[in-house]
């Protein structure tokens, strides 16, 4: 709940993703309740009929069809030309949206660090399964002055090598949206880690606005995981509505620090909002704490209800929950990974 006094910023991938976690999550693969069209051949079944080995259907031959796909056995039996259709296997787009507003830089363990670790782990799962992975930090800033090849730049550079048309737009660093996208393959894990390590929480989020921009800049459908505390004064509803309206299979992971769930402050306090400096003068008393807890529960319920009505999978997690538990248990049950 309080701003972390000594925020430990991860500097390398090892700090975000240790080997035991890698061992645990290596077996996982991303999944989606929806089937999306991919861009490249991947390991995911696509709606498209394609060139995989998995049979899908037959259809009558029309002129112009590829003769290679004619089912000659049927032609032999029925003397009619049928095309044999196969399922296309494509990649799955995974888009992780991290709330990098200052409010995430609170709590013990820090919510932002937790979000980073979670994004790293999930991204790793995505990358090793040949999916396209994109990470967007909403709000916050990217530390660039550390070296010539900043992580973001490196990720950008490495990403641009094997990708196509929108190389130059792959790393969008306007005022509050920092994105690394189109990462694919195990080799990109370092890029992902560098990007994540370069993020610094700052400022406030205008989640609705950012979500609109994200939605407009959508590149292909896929799974989107929003990691935030969802403490947004202007409300999270518009943003989520926009995102889900663009056809994403949306997951909302709400990170809360243990101190937010169970405040351990007392006395006459002036509570200052780290994002907008808003003040609330409170005198901590048992009824007030009771009210706070009730409000928090109602808030989380509100988020869950909102998401449930829109086929968004919502999940509230405390930052003292290990990331592997989150992945292997919570998210597996909710169908993000398998």
């Amino acid at each position, binding site marked *: 709940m309080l701003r972390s006094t000594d925020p430990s910023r991860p500097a390398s991938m090892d700090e975000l993703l240790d080997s035991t976690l890698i061992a645990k999550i290596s077996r996982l693969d991303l999944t989606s309740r929806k089937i999306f069209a991919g861009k490249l051949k991947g390991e995911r079944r696509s709606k498209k009929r394609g060139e995989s080995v998995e049979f899908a259907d037959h259809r009558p031959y029309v002129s112009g069809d590829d003769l290679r796909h004619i089912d000659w056995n049927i032609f032999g039996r029925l003397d009619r030309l049928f095309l044999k259709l196969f399922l296309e296997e494509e990649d799955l787009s995974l888009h992780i949206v991290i709330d990098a507003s200052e409010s995430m830089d609170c709590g013990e363990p820090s919510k932002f660090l937790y979000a980073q670790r979670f994004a790293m782990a999930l991204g790793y799962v995505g990358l090793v399964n040949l999916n396209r992975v994109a990470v967007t930090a909403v709000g916050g800033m990217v530390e660039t002055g550390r070296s010539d090849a900043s992580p973001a730049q490196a990720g950008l550079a490495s990403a641009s090598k094997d990708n196509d048309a929108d190389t130059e737009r792959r790393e969008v660093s306007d005022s509050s949206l920092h994105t690394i996208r189109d990462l694919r393959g195990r080799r990109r894990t370092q890029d992902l880690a560098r990007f994540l390590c370069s993020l610094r929480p700052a400022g406030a989020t205008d989640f609705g606005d950012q979500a609109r921009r994200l939605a407009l800049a959508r590149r292909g459908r896929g799974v989107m995981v929003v990691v935030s505390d969802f403490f947004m004064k202007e409300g999270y509803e518009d943003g989520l509505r926009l995102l889900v309206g663009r056809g994403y299979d949306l997951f909302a992971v709400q990170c809360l620090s243990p101190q937010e769930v169970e405040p*351990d402050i007392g006395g006459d306090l002036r*509570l200052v909002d780290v994002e907008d400096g808003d003040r609330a003068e409170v005198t901590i008393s*048992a009824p007030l704490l009771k009210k*706070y807890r009730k409000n928090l529960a109602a808030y989380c319920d509100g988020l869950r209800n909102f998401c449930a009505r829109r086929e968004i999978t919502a999940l509230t997690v405390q930052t003292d929950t290990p990331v592997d538990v989150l992945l292997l248990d919570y998210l597996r049950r909710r169908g993000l990974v398998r």
Partner: protein
Amino acid sequence: MPGGRMTFATPMLAIIAAAIAVPALVILYFLKLRRRSVEISSTLLWKKAIQDLQANAPFQRLRKNILLLLQLLALAAALLAVAQPEKKTAETTGTRHVLLIDRSASMAARDGNGGLSRLDAAKKDAVKLIDSLDEGDIFGADAHEAMVIAFDTTARVVQGFTSDKARLREAVESIEQTDAPGSIREAFQLARAHRPRPAGEPSGDPEPDADVFAGIVPPQTFHLFTDGRLADLDSFSPTSRDSVIYHTAGDPKTTNIGIVGLRAERGYEQPEHVTVFVGVQNTAPEPRSVEVELLIDGVPSAVRDVSIPGAETREGVVESGGENGVRAELRPEPGRGGLVFEMDMSRGAIATVRVHTDDAFATDDEGVLVIPPATKTSVAVVTSGNLYLAEALAGLPLATLDTLTPEEFKAALEDGRADRYDVVVLDGILPPNTSPGRALGPGRWLILGAVPGGSEGLIDRGEAGMTRFVDWKRNHPVLRDLTLEPVRIGVGRRIEIGENSVAVPLAETTAGPGIVEMLTPESRAIAVLFDVAESNWPFDVSFVVFLASAIDYLDTVSGAEGGARSVRPGEVISTRLPARASAVRLVSPDGDSHALTTTPDGRVTWGPVRRAGLYTLRWRGDTGPLDVSDGGEAVRPIASNLLDAFESDIAPESEVALASRIVSSSSRESMGVRRYWRWLLLGSLLVMMLEWYVYNRKVRL
């Protein structure tokens, strides 16, 4: 009035202070509360929670805030202190208190808790009262002042008006028991004399009318610490604005058996035959039988049983002064009994009479009596020639009878030879006057045909012509068994008894008193005011009987009223020593020796006597006719006995009837004014400390 109501001395002030302070505190609380800034992830939920709470109850914040509550509590205590709550447990007026503490004999009765004497109990109460006196309030209002007067027969200001409680306490503690009978008159006069007077008013005004000064003289509160056994309570006349609080001492059920009369007589014809009369009084309702022991010079000589009837409950209605008017129940009349010891003893002796009883009051259980040696009376007749007088006296059994002319008598007085005479009969002249204002000089006088003047004497309005006796005191020792009816007085005198006169009429003529008795501390006289020669009295047998009785009465030195050889506690020992007595000292019953100086005419005075018992005057020089010689020193014993039936009836009064009102005893547990502001301020301080503690405990993370 037990369980007095709590009132406030300055309620308006407190209300005004509260009207300012309470809103100020609350406003300050909201405005000036020092809050620690704490950065948190989002105020979203908190704001909502606060809004919710405030929506639920606007004053939730106040109510649930223990700090503010404690501050309000501390403030409330302080404001209450400003209001100065006080509990008037007894009606008091003014800020001046007069503590009248009775130290008379009956206050020695040990009927308090744990054998505490009444005086000790009264002193404890008085100290309690002093402790509860107002020390002035926080705004410098007058502290209550008190003065302490101790009284028995006489009164003394132990401590003048002061608000210094330590001195008052010390004064109260310094009061010592005496064996004197109680009398409040002098105490009240002292208290009145110390009362502040309006400027310009002569301080010597003997009787400031109560209500004339009501508006000018501040009222005061009299605290009477006594058992109520005061015979002259009706001389206590506080103004109508004064309060009187009666702090009773003692247990109303206390009974007592004591000696109330003690007297030794030698036979007139046989002086060696001594009769000791002992009067005993019982205040218990049931008859009692006690042993009475007689000791001669400390050696037990006789023991007698005496039965005393129980006290009789009298019923009736009596008019008692004050607003209550009529009071129905009377005090039981104590039972009286007496016994007589008889013996033959020609020497002088000290007789001690002891009543064996274990009652609470010990003072009257023992009496001392000086039995003079058996002597016959020496009488001098001072006359310019009076045959019938000489003839009448010659028939009496006297030791010596000298006839002197006035000139010879004057010479005898000057060289001290006159001391040899027990009684001097003055025919038509007055005794020499040694001190101005006194009617008589020291000595025992039988005056015939002269009128003692002066302020203590009588007013002679001239001749009255033929007159006769109309009334006389038939039970007086001098006139006992006499009939004066046949006496015709040729030339009577119009006599008036002045206001300050010590004369008590024994026989009244149609023109005024005919025979008076005059008792002063130093002299004792019977005066026949008309000229006996101008009447037929010398020819009546009653004249001889009168002379004999009068000389015997005047000469009686042993006995309760026996002049200088006996003195009641509270009175002054005043006796005349032979000429050239030196190194005079008085040994009191407790063994203390007091050096005395003699006046030029050989008189010594000491006192007032505080304790009963045997006092002994010792000096170097000649012994008087009744003195004894002991190791080269002359010794004159003087007995001091309470012998007061009123004082021995020790059951305390539940109410005292003053001149203008009846005051009931106040409850012992609660008296005076209790002010609580100190406790409230202390409470306020404690609450503030608690608040600080809570504050420091709360503000931590």
